[in-house]
């Protein structure tokens, strides 16, 4: 197998066994980056110098037989809305173009503690608002399987990087499916952990009650290791859970014999692409062969999820984004007369259209006289959606459905139709509203040769079971091993 196409664990094994030096891997890596990245445009910031330094350090530690972290030597990319100390964190927004955080996000701190090599910051829809990575203020990331298609979003930079072997692993973030949906569209593995499983400290807030950092990897076993590293309680995040973190890799090969898989009828309704429908149904046949029971279930409030999501997420976003005012950091207009004018110009010039649209929607939903009708009512419907899952999980161990109703769409195809774009997340949003964990894994290809993803959902804090179920399928199939046909001189 070609070196940079290996999984994170495979490359780590080669480094730890001194078959190859971490420094040589990283050099090869950046050479390939120069080849491929101009086409894919996955990164906003590339951290080459630091990465080489870190790799050299790891080689030295290895020579001295010092103890190394769980992610030692693995190149990893970070979505650019997760704060990295002394490294630009822009949220793909003009308003934070020059922002360099003086602190690491909790998850980033954990990566560093476990000796991962941070190779760069990946592109996203501005402030993670979008499903195609077209809303970035800086660049449009392309789907490595076909450059005319979007990689999905908002973590499209991270999923495209991993799919194109421009990173071995990546962190993404979810508010309504922003890891799982682009993972499906790029043919990689994306995990959205339980709300509270990973500290949100340092993740630039979008919808605080929904936001969660997630993992993007080439396969399920890599996801198990990465999740283990970033999960856990953090004193700096009151909403992070004090639930012990298991070793997700341990027992990952225990199979699915006797397991009950729920199939929600609402997720296989109109609007579902035929290829996606077939791929997921084929996957269910495999599970059946492996000993799982398939159970029909209903999640009756699913149809309200998108509406609830856009009220809750935008309301919280309108408040979370109020701090970008040009007073303390970030972009400030250079032609203001007075403080109100400075606020208006700074924000008008600094934010893109989609962000402005959502701030306005959110402020409207929270306005006096509308709060009860919108935010409060949405919160109530949200608890009904959550209850749907509680009831379903009394009968089944997990739920399987498509990650996205369609494979990747063409760049520009949905850019001018926000409503159609919002429906890209129709299958992923309910898990965010309920706070439950989900994973998207490759399960097929469309007629056009674009990847198709299937998602598995489980009860709160059952990531271990989720990974086990996903791995059982992965072991039996080779969708995750397929690589896009990228022309590169370095592989």
């Amino acid at each position: 197998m070609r070196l940079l196409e290996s999984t994170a664990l495979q490359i780590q094994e080669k480094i730890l066994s001194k078959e190859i030096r971490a420094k040589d891997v990283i050099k090869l890596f950046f050479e390939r980056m120069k080849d491929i990245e101009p086409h894919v445009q996955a990164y906003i910031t590339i951290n080459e110098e630091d990465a080489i330094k870190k790799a050299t350090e790891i080689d030295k530690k290895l020579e001295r037989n010092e103890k190394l972290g769980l992610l030692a030597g693995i190149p990893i990319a970070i979505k650019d809305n997760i704060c990295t100390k002394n490294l630009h964190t822009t949220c793909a927004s003009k308003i934070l173009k020059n922002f360099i955080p003086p602190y690491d996000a909790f998850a980033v701190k954990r990566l560093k503690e476990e000796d991962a090599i941070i190779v760069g910051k990946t592109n996203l829809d501005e402030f993670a608002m979008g499903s195609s990575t077209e809303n970035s203020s800086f660049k449009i990331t392309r789907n490595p399987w076909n450059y005319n298609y979007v990689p999905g979003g908002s973590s499209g930079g991270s999923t495209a990087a991993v799919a194109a072997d421009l990173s071995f692993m990546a962190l993404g973030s979810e508010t309504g499916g922003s890891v799982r949906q682009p993972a499906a569209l790029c043919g990689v593995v994306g995990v959205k952990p339980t709300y509270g499983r990973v500290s949100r400290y340092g993740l630039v807030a979008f919808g605080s009650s929904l936001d969660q950092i997630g993992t993007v990897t080439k396969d399920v076993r890599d996801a198990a290791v990465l999740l283990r590293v970033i999960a856990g309680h953090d004193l700096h995040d009151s909403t992070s859970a004090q639930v012990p973190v298991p070793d997700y890799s341990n027992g990952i090969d225990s199979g699915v014999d006797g397991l009950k898989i729920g199939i929600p009828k609402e997720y296989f309704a109109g609007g579902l692409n035929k290829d996606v429908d077939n791929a997921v149904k084929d996957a269910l046949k495999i599970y059946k062969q492996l000993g799982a029971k398939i159970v029909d279930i209903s999640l009756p409030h699913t149809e309200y999820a998108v509406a609830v999501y856009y009220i809750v997420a935008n309301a919280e976003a309108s408040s979370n984004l109020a701090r970008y005012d040009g007073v303390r950091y970030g972009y400030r207009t250079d032609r203001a007369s007075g403080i109100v004018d400075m606020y208006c110009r700074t924000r008008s010039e600094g934010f893109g259209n989609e962000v402005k649209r959502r701030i306005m929607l959110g402020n409207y939903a929270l306005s006096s006289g509308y709060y009860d009708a919108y935010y409060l009512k949405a919160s109530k419907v949200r608890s009904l959606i959550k209850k749907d899952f509680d009831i379903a999980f009394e009968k089944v161990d997990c739920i399987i459905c498509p990650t996205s109703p369609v494979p990747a769409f063409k760049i520009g195809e949905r850019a001018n139709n926000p409503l159609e774009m919002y429906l890209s997340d129709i299958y992923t949003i309910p898990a965010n509203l309920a706070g439950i964990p989900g994973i998207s894994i490759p399960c097929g290809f469309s007629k056009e040769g674009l990847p198709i993803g299937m998602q598995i959902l489980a009860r709160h804090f059952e990531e271990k079971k989720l990974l086990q179920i996903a791995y059982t399928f992965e072991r039996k199939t080779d969708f995750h091993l397929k690589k896009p046909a990228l022309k590169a001189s370095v592989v």
Partner: protein
Amino acid sequence: MEYEVVIGLETHAELATITKLFCGCSTQFGAEPNTQVCPVCLGMPGVLPVMNKKAFEYALKAAVALNCEINRFTNFDRKSYYYPDLPKNYQISQNYYNLGINGCMNIDLNGNRKTIRIHNVHLEEEAGKLIHPEETGADYSLVDFNRAGVPLLEIVSYPDMRTVDEVDSYMQTLRKILLYTEVSDCKMQEGSLRFEASISLRKKGIDKLGNRVEIKNLNSMKSVIKAIEYEAIRQSALLDKGETIDRETRLWDEVNGKSARMRSKEESQDYRYFPEPDLLPVLIDEKWLSAIKNSIPELPLARKQRFVEAFKLSDYDASILTEEKVLADSFEECVKIMDRPKAFSNWITNDLLREVKDRKLDINSLQIKPKQLALLVEIVEKGTISSTIAKEVFSEMVQTGKDPQKIIEEKGLTQISDEGLIEAVIDKIIASNPSVIEDYKKGKKNALAFLVGQVMKETKGKANPKMVNELLKGKVGI
């Protein structure tokens, strides 16, 4: 026309925690600008608040002391408005589930009590401070975020006050309660205690409240009173002319003794409150609440009443003693050592407070200790020193913290009660004042007082005055 003035107060008190409400930064007053800040209190991207438990407990304690019903489930809400001193452009406050509601506080009006109802008590974060450069025409302002995120308690009264005396008593009593419960240092000059007033007028005998005007920028209790007086006159003049009162917010101008419109009701902000998703709700269980209740000391008004009854003090003395917790505590300690409440009360309310005032001392860090004051009272009773000398000794004790015996010894202030010594001085005085003796013999009674004074002067006040009197009378022959 005669109007009734209806007044409510909103009080903000900074809580006396060492660190801020949602981060570990210091709350110390007076540091160099922007030296007590971190990513959290600067509102940088991606940071999260973490509740300071101590601050929450202080707020809870104040709510209990103000007889509030405690919401067993409370959470925090975001209050949104744009201002450069507010880092996140929203303030974490409470709106939907305030910590305490429906409380009340008794105030004392020359011995009569009145109950002022408290609408709610809640916890929120303080904003930073804008600094406007001295130079005229500067086209910028600066912000100091040292104060941003300091825990702030807001206490909202019902409009139950009718006179400035009631307002004054409300402010004093509230201040005392916050000091007694040790939740705030209430330093108005440092801004840790602030008031905002709302005032409306209505015709006497009418129930319906008039339009309310809110007044901000009140920097001292005196300005609260002045602003209310000004506003009552302004509103009654308008009403007399048949005009209506606009619902508005006015800013008090201390220098000119006037207020001016800041914004009208229509311009008032929509704060777009919604529950703070970054903090978990706080559930207050019975155990926690009773621990808080048990930590509350006897409050000033109750203590004053007890002082009057138990120690037979005057209402006036008792209220001065209970004004400051540290005074009342010291007084009680003295009485425990020696059962002379009246004497201790006199020493504290007259002499000690005069020393504090004259020497600008901090009442909370006085050098003199109750045990020493008790010793002094005992020494005076024994007649070792006269009460005049005692005052001199006391002043020295306040300044140096030395024991009274030590001062008496060092300065040789022991009272002279040796008959021979006193007689010798008397003889000397008589010999040098023959004309005064003549006057006395002719019946000028106050001549004797002059002679006593001379003897005391000669002995530097140390002669036992009673003995001087008796011996003198004997000598000049009565």
